[in-house]
């Protein structure tokens, strides 16, 4: 399926007799699958729930196909050498998510508590906004190294985003976590965007300081500790993020940020001691926060004994917040079994208010079964794998760092949410990227995919000129961004 479309630039280059395949046709073929599968799923839900092919099938298929087509054309035009898997995988997840949300929309129980009903339409609009942002990223971010210039601005923006929910009158406390801001009837979760901005800051900062962090360190108790002046800014940002997140009672996001930070630090310095250091700090942080934060203690209790929590939630006269969600989700997974009940034939609405957001994976687990859920987890795994591969292929340390930061954060988010919903780790209240209902999440993750595609395009693009030095990495470091002169 692949083609070897060579750009004119390439043909004129002195080295370019062997054309790198652009893989755009592969992407197109995969995209067709990624649209057709959700369309079938959509028809399946309609048949299962109402015994008829849903009236909106054509519109839905056309809408999803149009969005995928626009994204594909944008990639073809603006990132012709990009990884061919990222877009179809994200489209497939997004499409399946839409189907699941539409399926939950039909639930009378969820409608009665105003969780579902018309949400799929909203999500389709969010998806359109997400893909628009994706296209905007491809058009305007011609070169990912441009982002490097905004290292310190990114830091400020990230802090600003994280602080927003704490602004009185703007922040909204939804089910115990203050991670939303509300403007009119719109709610935005700035943390989802902060994830990307923070990755840009870490990548930019670590690229500059990596040598200092890796080499200029003192040995202390078998660990290489960096000098305070190198570590200081990062520690400060991290510490402030954690503090904010403690006030916002959002363990998941703080875990995600810290994990992303450790991953990028490790990649930058190549020192294993950072992993140890990071794990110790996160353990200390988690225990420390849990010791005084009742919201998190409740979560841990619920994780250790979900059934007890379920019973408390049913017992009249029991005070305090007790949620039966996790036990309901476990029952949903178990009831799905190996092959699942089939689309529309499960009862994951019993999870109630988070059924289409945090707990949407339970719907997949119940209705598609072990087989379907494993496929979905593997799709996430593939996205991460393509991301890390992009990092490996990237020729500049900033690109490597940004790609690994974003894909690592993506992987951690998937793990934290899926692990939480399946009772593997305490529940932290984040959403499954692309699957869950929510505008911020979909839009931010499409931007994330856009950036990865941009980095992969740069990484896979045939070298515009013969390499001046066998050590391409070194050469490119010298080049101060996209605007600098080519080292020839």
């Amino acid at each position, binding site marked *: 399926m692949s083609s070897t479309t060579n750009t004119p630039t390439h043909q004129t280059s002195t080295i370019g007799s062997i054309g790198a395949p652009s893989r755009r046709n592969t992407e197109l073929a995969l995209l067709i699958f990624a649209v057709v599968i959700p369309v079938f799923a959509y028809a399946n839900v309609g048949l299962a729930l109402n015994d008829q092919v849903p009236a909106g099938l054509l519109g839905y298929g056309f809408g999803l196909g149009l969005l995928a087509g626009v994204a594909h054309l944008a990639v073809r035009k603006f990132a012709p050498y990009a990884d061919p898997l990222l877009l179809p995988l994200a489209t497939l997840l997004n499409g399946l998510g839409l189907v699941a949300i539409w399926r939950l929309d039909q639930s*009378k*129980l969820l409608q009665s508590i105003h969780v579902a009903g018309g949400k799929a339409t909203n999500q389709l609009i969010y998806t359109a906004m997400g893909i628009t942002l994706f296209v905007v990223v491809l058009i305007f971010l011609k070169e990912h190294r441009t982002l490097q210039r905004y290292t310190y601005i990114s830091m400020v923006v990230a802090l600003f985003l994280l602080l927003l929910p704490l602004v009185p009158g703007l922040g909204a406390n939804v089910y115990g976590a203050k991670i939303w801001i509300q403007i009119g009837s719109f709610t935005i979760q700035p943390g989802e965007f902060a994830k990307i901005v923070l990755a840009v800051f870490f990548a930019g900062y670590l690229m500059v300081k990596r040598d200092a962090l890796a080499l200029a360190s003192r040995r202390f108790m078998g660990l290489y500790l960096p000098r305070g002046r190198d570590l200081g800014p990062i520690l400060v940002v991290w510490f402030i993020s954690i503090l904010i997140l403690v006030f916002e009672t959002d363990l998941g996001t703080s875990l995600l940020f810290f994990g992303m930070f450790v*991953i990028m630090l*490790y*990649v*930058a310095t*190549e020192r294993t001691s950072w992993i140890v250091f990071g794990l110790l700090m996160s353990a200390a942080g988690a225990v420390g926060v849990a010791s005084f934060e009742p919201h998190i203690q409740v979560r841990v209790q619920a994780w250790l004994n979900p*059934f007890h929590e*379920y019973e408390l939630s049913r017992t009249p006269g029991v005070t305090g917040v007790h949620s039966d969600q996790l*036990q309901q989700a*476990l*029952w949903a*997974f*178990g*009831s*799905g*079994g*190996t092959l699942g009940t089939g689309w529309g034939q499960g*009862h994951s*609405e*019993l999870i109630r208010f988070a059924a289409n957001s945090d707990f949407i994976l339970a719907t997949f*687990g119940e209705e598609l*079964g*072990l087989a379907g*859920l*494993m496929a979905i*987890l*593997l799709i*996430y*795994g593939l996205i*991460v*794998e393509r991301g*890390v*591969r992009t*990092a*490996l292929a990237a020729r500049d*340390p900033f690109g*490597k760092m940004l790609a*690994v930061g974003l*894909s*690592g954060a993506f*992987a*951690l988010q*998937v*793990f934290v949410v*899926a*692990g939480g919903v*399946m*009772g*593997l780790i305490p529940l932290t209240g984040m959403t499954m990227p692309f699957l869950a209902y929510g505008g911020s999440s979909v839009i931010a993750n499409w931007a994330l995919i856009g950036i990865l595609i941009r980095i992969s395009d740069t990484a896979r693009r045939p070298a515009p000129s013969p390499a001046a030095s066998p050590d391409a*990495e070194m050469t490119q470091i010298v080049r101060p961004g996209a605007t600098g002169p080519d080292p020839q």
Partner: protein
Amino acid sequence: MNKPLRRIAIFCGLLVLALLIRDNWLQYVKADELRTAGDNRRVAIERYAAPRGDIIVDGEPITGSVETKAGDFKYKRTYKNGPMWAPVTGYSSQAFDSTQLEKINDGILTGNDDRLFFRNTLDMLTGKPKQGGNVVTTLNAAAQKAAYAGLKNQGGKGAVVALEPSTGKILSLASYPSYDPSSFAGSRDGDAAAWGKLQKKSDSADPMLNRALRETYPPGSTFKVVTAAAALESGKYSSADQKTDSPLPWVMPGTQTELKNEGNIPCKDATMRVALQFSCNTVFGKIGADLGNDKMLEEAKKFGFTSEHFTPTRANASVFGKDMNDSQTALSSIGQFDTAATPLQMAMVASAVANDGKLMKPYMVDSLQSSGIDPIEKTEPQELNQPLSPGNAQILQSMMETVVKDGTGKNAQINGVTVGGKTGTAQHGVENSENPYAWFISYAKLPDHSAPVAVAVVIEDDNAVRDDISGGGLAAPIAKNVMEAVINSKK
């Protein structure tokens, strides 16, 4: 920088692997346990996803199912003439579980019973929805109607049990006041309110108590039939017309208390026939004391006292004391002191006498069938015991027939039918302060000597004028109507 990148890739792979392993654990290893967990609402949803099978009386279902408009339970149970049949059916409620036949035969009714597996598989292959099987009862609708109407007209509390003596089939099982199981079959707020109103704490009449099977009352004079049976079985008496050694007044052994008779009746040295006809406490008290606790207990046990009976709905064990002294035995022998019996137990006593001494195990489920009315299981009549010999049974029959012909049970007479019976007015409350219970046990015998029905009626009427309460007055007419209903439906 690529070495740490590869390690990060491995790390991410491990995260996904951990999720996959956890997923397999949940959805494969633990799946069945989670799927069938009692608190998993899907179990209930699945249970109410299809109409339940029916409970059938005289070929007609007394239950039904309707589709509910709201909520996640698709069907709910309905009952035809719910209050009348509640002691038979029990209830099946989306919110409050189920009881009695609905509970015991739940597997058949929902269609989940293993014995329906073949049928279900066949239905699945032919595309038919899963259907529950039916429970066919032994009850007689006309008799049940007569029993319930009688209790309702009486207005107090009470119960009726009618049996077919030759098989043990339960023909009628009524309890009053009763409740309509339809009223809380769903799971809406209205159902909860209806349920709340029926609970004993909000309704002192306790309408959900199955008085026919689960309440024991002092049987009063009706227990004299058991005492008479013990006397005959002991060999001390070989005829109904043999004089007993019964002084009047009679002081209970070991005490200075005289045992009193109700009114001025000819009890001195009366024959057992006369003693039963007039319901002499002195005669049967003394017979009991003379036989002793052990002999009396043994005979009572043969009639079914002291054990629970499963019809298959459980009936409480009736009580006859042990290790009692002679005066206590004397009181117990006339159905007072610790003696207590369920209406079912007293119907069994009458039934054993009518069936020439052979006591059949009472049952109310004739057969179980699949939705396609293929038989799955049929209940065969079973002998439970032989409390008295055929000869002695016939002697006792003639005594009980005298009671109806010339004695306290005249209200139960039926034209062209031989009726045997015994009244009872059981004292109740501390120092006999509360209104007594009115009892009547009886059987009907057709000219061909077959006995199609034995019945026990008990009325606890807190509102009746005390002097109006007597087994013959309140309970006998109901028994008569029930027996007539059975006899007429046989024709």
